[in-house]
């Protein structure tokens, strides 16, 4: 192997380079100012600028590369394709909205805001690497860059008890998952002789049924991802971490982190190991069903809003896993994969919106928002209450929101592959989920109370919420073209 670093390669990773440089700006300024924070607006502005620049470059690079015959970067370490582009954009947008939440949330906007911006952008950098990785080791590097930044972000919270516990839990279980993943990679390397994903794909058909060690490797890698995307029974850390972490960080974890982890999962599953191993196929299906049921049933009995959203996010992992399984067995990979990507777009938007509303309520780092606390919100802030209603109905899958069309595309591809029973479990679970998604709406509109949210009348969080709500509806109604674009990008 020869390592030629051409200028072309550097241009192709320019979003990552820009992101890295931008992440250094706020802390450098802080150091130059003698360890004093500049105004938080300026910090926020620098962070958002970095993310926006990365997004624009991401788009330009994708446009330029999508026609070229060789989309690989750095001797097959990274790949620029539909998945890396679309999920990368999701990750950048979600990071941007999370940054806005961090700025407005009293729990995170304090002495160390510059450091938070640095960590968020570093985490986003890890995400971009993760979604573009074509090699299992590069994938691991992306995963760890993203996760390490997150561990620190959660631990940095001023809140002393829950957040520390959350950070610790997340760190230990995250490391455990990474270890599983790396252990699996070692098996794959031992049997295939390479960690390059396309090469593994080539050998899967023949190795999966004959070579036990290869199978163990694949299973361990998949298990590692099941931890990361909180598939039951590996989900136990999720509710505690989401609840304990400051809300903006929870929003980041529930959307961007989840989306990119699923994108990497998607790359692994295209090895078609599910076609070769009947057992793995069966087990994953049951895990999907278990995740949906467990997430939804557990969400019903939650009183804490964030915890409910955490369980709801577990349930959504179950739905997405249905899509992942579909991709794993499908001949037409792009059909199922675009369903997954579209779902990730929708899921990220509506979950971000819901978390943003929670963040709006938090007066200090010790705020605990119970669902019943929302009573009377519709009278106080009809627009915000209506936005939350849209997010929740979309999460429940009521048309014409993006949540409905996401589920529609996901389950349509599942039914197309003959996985009708998984689709049935999926739709029945959306009925169960309607029960708890309706609860905050009931409390907001039908109970008397006088809750006041903590935010000022026009703060950036409110704007982010409004924009997300509008997009949840608009992207639902005009989902057709977007789905087609995604599908074209993936084929």
């Amino acid at each position: 192997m020869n390592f030629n670093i051409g200028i072309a390669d550097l241009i192709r990773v320019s979003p990552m380079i820009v992101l890295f440089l931008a992440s250094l700006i706020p802390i450098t300024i802080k150091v130059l100012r003698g360890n004093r924070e500049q105004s938080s607006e300026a910090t926020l502005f620098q962070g958002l600028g970095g993310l926006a620049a990365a997004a624009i470059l991401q788009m330009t690079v994708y446009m330029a590369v999508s026609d070229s015959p060789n989309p690989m970067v750095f001797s097959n370490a990274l790949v620029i394709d539909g998945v890396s582009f679309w999920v990368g954009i999701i990750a950048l947008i979600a990071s941007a909205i999370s940054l806005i939440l961090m700025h407005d949330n009293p729990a995170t906007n304090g002495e160390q805001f510059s450091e938070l911006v640095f960590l968020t952008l570093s985490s986003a950098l890890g995400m971009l690497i993760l979604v573009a990785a074509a090699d299992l080791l590069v994938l691991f590097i992306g995963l760890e860059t993203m996760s390490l930044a997150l561990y620190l972000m959660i631990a940095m919270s001023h809140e002393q008890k829950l957040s520390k516990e959350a950070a610790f839990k997340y760190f230990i279980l995250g490391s455990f998952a990474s270890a599983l993943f790396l252990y699996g990679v070692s098996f794959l390397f031992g049997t295939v002789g390479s960690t390059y994903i396309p090469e593994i794909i080539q050998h899967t058909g023949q190795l999966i049924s004959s070579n036990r060690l290869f199978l163990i490797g694949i299973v361990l890698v998949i298990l590692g991802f099941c931890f990361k995307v909180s598939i039951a029974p590996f989900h136990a850390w999720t509710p505690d971490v989401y609840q304990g972490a400051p809300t903006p960080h929870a929003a980041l974890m529930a959307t961007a982190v989840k989306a990119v982890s699923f994108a990497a999962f998607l790359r692994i599953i295209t090895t078609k190991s599910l076609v070769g191993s009947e057992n793995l196929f069966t087990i994953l299906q049951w895990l999907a069903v278990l995740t949906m049921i467990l997430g939804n049933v557990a969400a019903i009995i939650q009183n804490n809003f964030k915890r409910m959203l955490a369980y709801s996010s577990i349930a959504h992992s179950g739905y997405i896993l249905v899509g992942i399984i579909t991709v794993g067995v499908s001949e037409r990979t792009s059909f199922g994969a675009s369903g997954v990507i579209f779902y990730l777009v929708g899921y990220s938007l509506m979950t971000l919106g819901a978390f943003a509303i929670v963040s709006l309520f938090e007066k200090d780092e010790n705020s605990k928002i119970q669902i019943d606390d929302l009573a009377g919100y519709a009278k106080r802030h009809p627009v915000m209450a209506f936005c939350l209603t849209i997010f929740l109905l979309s999460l429940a899958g009521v048309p014409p929101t993006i949540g409905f069309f996401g589920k529609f595309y996901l389950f349509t591809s599942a039914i197309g592959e003959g996985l009708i029973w998984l689709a049935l479990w999926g739709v029945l679970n959306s009925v169960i989920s309607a029960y708890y998604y309706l609860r905050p709406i009931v409390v907001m509109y039908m109970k008397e109370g006088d809750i006041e949210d903590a935010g000022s009348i026009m703060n950036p969080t409110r704007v982010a919420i409004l924009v997300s709500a509008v997009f949840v509806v608009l992207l639902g109604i005009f989902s057709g073209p977007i789905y087609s674009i995604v599908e074209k990008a993936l084929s």
Partner: protein
Amino acid sequence: MILSAITFLPLLFALVVLLWPNTKTLRHLALGLSIIEFLASLAMLAHFDSSTASLQMVERFTWIERFGISYFLGLDGLSLWLIMLTTFLTPIVLLGSWNSIQDRVKGFLVSVFVLQTAMIGTFLAMDAIFFYLFWELSLVPMYFMIGIWGGQRRIYATVKFFIYTMLGSVLMLVAIIYLMFMTQETLGTMSASLLDFYRLKIPFIGGQFFTLQTLLFFAFALAFSIKVPVFPFHTWLPDAHVEAPTPGSVILAGVMLKMGTYGFLRWTIPLFPEASEYWAWLFMTVGVIGIVYGALVAMVQPDIKKLVAYSSVSHMGYILLGLFTFNQFGMTGSLYQMLNHGVSTGALFLLVGMIYERTHSREISKYGGLAGVLPLFTIAFFIITLSSIAVPMTNGFIGEFLILLGSFKAEKAFAYVAVTGVVLGAVYMLWMFKRVFFGEKGELVKDEHHPLHDLSCREICVLVPMVVMVFWMGLFPNHFLDFSKASLDHLVADRSNYQLAIMGDKAEVKAATTAFNKAEASQ
């Protein structure tokens, strides 16, 4: 253009109401807008060509190309009167709720208009996903209507309503997606158009439950049965009705329940002819059970509104029975009964609402002797009662008579049991009427601190159109049925190979006729 206007004008009206600055004139504005909508639907009626069974005034654009989903609206004799019913009831509901809704008027009016769009869209959509969209969307405004402006146990009732209905419809969604893949196999391209669904030949094996057509049939039938509601699935209805505010009850009983029976008529029966025929006994049985059970339970209700709610279960049983006779009489009767039920039960809920506004009680035992105090109210209530128990010359008679005739032709045993429902209906309605209006004055009626006032001018305006419709539909049924005759004839005659052509579209007509000829030849 006209169908899009009819469907989406109310949504625009909702926006207008939302942005209207003056809260005092909100109600006037909404009433005016709903009357404009009614006039628009009259224009649609004037354009309607009653000589053909084809879809008219069709509007069709591709919406989601990848899955063959289109924006597809079409009108025929099956949907025409249900739309007229919707646009007719809305101004009446708004006028009827003039004083009863005081809190958050704006939100209420917006809900009514959004609901109107959802209901009309459900009746007009000829694309499965488009249809599903309206079908589910209708839940949301009704959910708020019951939940915000409802009675004591409104939250329980509204959540039950939402979850119950959603449970039924998600299985239908899976069935729709499956049918879309079937169109891909047989027609080459994926399509969600109902007309393409009609072209499918879905394999049917009688007697085996887990076969394709039977499963698909039940997936659709379950969704519609819950909405109707058919006997074992009716439990959400009394809760929802009792807790809903008067306008909510009127719309729920008047139009939303018809979405279920319309679904049977438009989707289940023509799409799955063999399965419908094979399982007709089941639906006729539950229909008859619904008739008798609803009547018996209505008889013992201490609450007037609950009584009317259970009478709905009974009346909807008739409609279901008529649909599954598959003959001219039964199906015509069912379609007519859908309208009758909308008028008479809608009017009953309005009347119950009026008396509730005066006394804040619906308990039958607290009334008595109302006839002496409120003569006009009594007259109106009596006329509507007669319509509800299907006395000749009122609209109810035509519908029930046709359904009984049809079921007698189809299966005598069901007719025998169903006839008892006529008697039972008279029993519970007249008995209630006696207890409320005659006899000794009840505690609420003789309460001297709160003297009761007879119908106000506004209330008379609400009731007059209803009473007029009762007699018009009772005396001149052909004024209405002539519009639907072609469509119903087509459905009855060609049920086993039902195709719908689009009026004026040569290619569609040709495709439909060739498909039909092929089927003829193969027979």
